[in-house]
């Protein structure tokens, strides 16, 4: 048996965390309690439940960005009109996470802190230039998501620090935004490869701006900035599509595991990207 701390305010949560440095921060618990299952009873660390911390809940609009509380569950994100307006890509991704009950429990902050290569919310957050706001008794700071996530299960979160909000800059929408997840079945499956893409074309139908990100094909989300730059000005035709496929095939670095082989992931990563680019023309 271990204690469960249930602070109602952020300062209280930070104080409790300072007093219990071994405490595990718990939001939706969908990942944490599964991992804890294997633990030998009697040695479990204290749990710090963040579900009732008011500052970590909900979605607010500020002048320059949309702020999503770290302990906001995905079902709330999916239902929120502000997220639909400013970050439809995140809505698309959130809809593919777990089943309905999991989406009522699992939170955006939890998905980020778990830092799984397969985290479904991550590719959209990279494309949306999300910043991760952190708080500790010493103060606040914010990091770009790419700087926050360091590797599988590793983040820049320091001892005594909590993720408080995810900040999404309000930027003009892209006419084409698409998230695609592939798994071994249609629902309730951990991603084998995921893809997020945003693009706009110029008046001549050439690519004006394109951003792409892949999940589950590297230790963290994979971006191919050189390809994105190279594609600016390219017409949407077969040669471009082929170029994209080749570049992705070479650019991603997946591993083989129980869910799929590296080779398959590479193929699908390329196919999802070419499908996205091809569809820009249609």
């Amino acid at each position, binding site marked *: 048996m271990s204690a*469960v701390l249930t602070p109602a305010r952020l300062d209280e949560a930070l104080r409790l965390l300072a007093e219990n440095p071994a405490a595990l921060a718990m939001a939706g618990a969908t990942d944490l*309690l*599964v991992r804890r299952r294997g633990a030998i009873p009697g040695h479990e660390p204290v*749990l710090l*439940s963040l579900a009732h911390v008011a500052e970590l809940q909900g979605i607010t609009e500020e002048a320059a960005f949309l702020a999503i509380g770290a302990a906001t569950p995905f079902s709330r994100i999916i239902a929120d009109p502000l997220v639909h307006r400013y970050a439809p890509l995140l809505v698309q991704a959130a809809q593919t996470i777990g089943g*309905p*009950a999991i989406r009522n*429990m699992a939170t955006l902050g939890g998905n980020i802190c778990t830092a799984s290569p397969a985290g479904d919310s991550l590719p959209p957050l990279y494309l949306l230039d999300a910043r991760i706001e952190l708080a500790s008794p010493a103060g606040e700071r914010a990091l770009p998501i790419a700087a926050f996530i360091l590797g599988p299960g590793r983040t820049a979160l320091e001892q005594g620090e909590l993720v408080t909000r995810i900040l999404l800059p309000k930027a003009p929408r892209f006419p084409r935004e698409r998230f695609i997840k592939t798994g071994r079945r249609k*629902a*309730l499956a951990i991603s084998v490869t995921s893809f997020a893409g945003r693009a706009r074309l110029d008046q001549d139908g050439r690519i004006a701006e394109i951003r792409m990100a892949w999940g589950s094909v590297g230790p963290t989300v994979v971006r191919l900035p050189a390809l994105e730059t190279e594609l600016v000005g390219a017409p949407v035709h077969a040669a471009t599509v082929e170029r994209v496929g080749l570049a992705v095939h070479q650019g991603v670095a997946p591993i083989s595991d129980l869910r799929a082989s590296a080779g398959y992931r590479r193929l699908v990563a390329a196919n999802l990207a070419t499908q996205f680019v091809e569809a820009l023309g249609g």
Partner: protein
Amino acid sequence: MKVRFELNEAPMEIDVAPDRRVVDLLREDLRLTGTKEGCGTGECGACTILVNGQTRLSCLMVAAQLDGARVTTVEGLAATTAGATIQRAFVEEGAVQCGFCIPGMEMAALALLRQGDAPGRECIREGLSGNLCRCTGYTKIVDAVERAGRDLHAGREEQ
């Protein structure tokens, strides 16, 4: 710790280890064994309950998280119009075989049907996609939820 919550419309106070899994609290401590455990890792949905009207997996919740919450389990279903309608539809449409997934399915169905209009089959399948059934192939479960949705919708129209 003392955990106070509302359980199936009645106040409940229980002295329990704060990190006790809610599924164990319900089944073993309160003998509400209608809530089932099929996997313990949030993959099967057999332990689905409603917390403040939303589906939750009671195998991935600890007792302390219930404090102050409003909890509905399958034992509280029949007391509500929607719950009784869903149960009747499951029985009459032949949606029940071994029955071990059924309480969780019904909770998921209740949450889905509370969202409003009578949903179509695709929407029902999405709504039940977190609940595994190994006996039925889902066809008759979808039939049951579809019918419950229609019955509830018709009931609302009449009022």
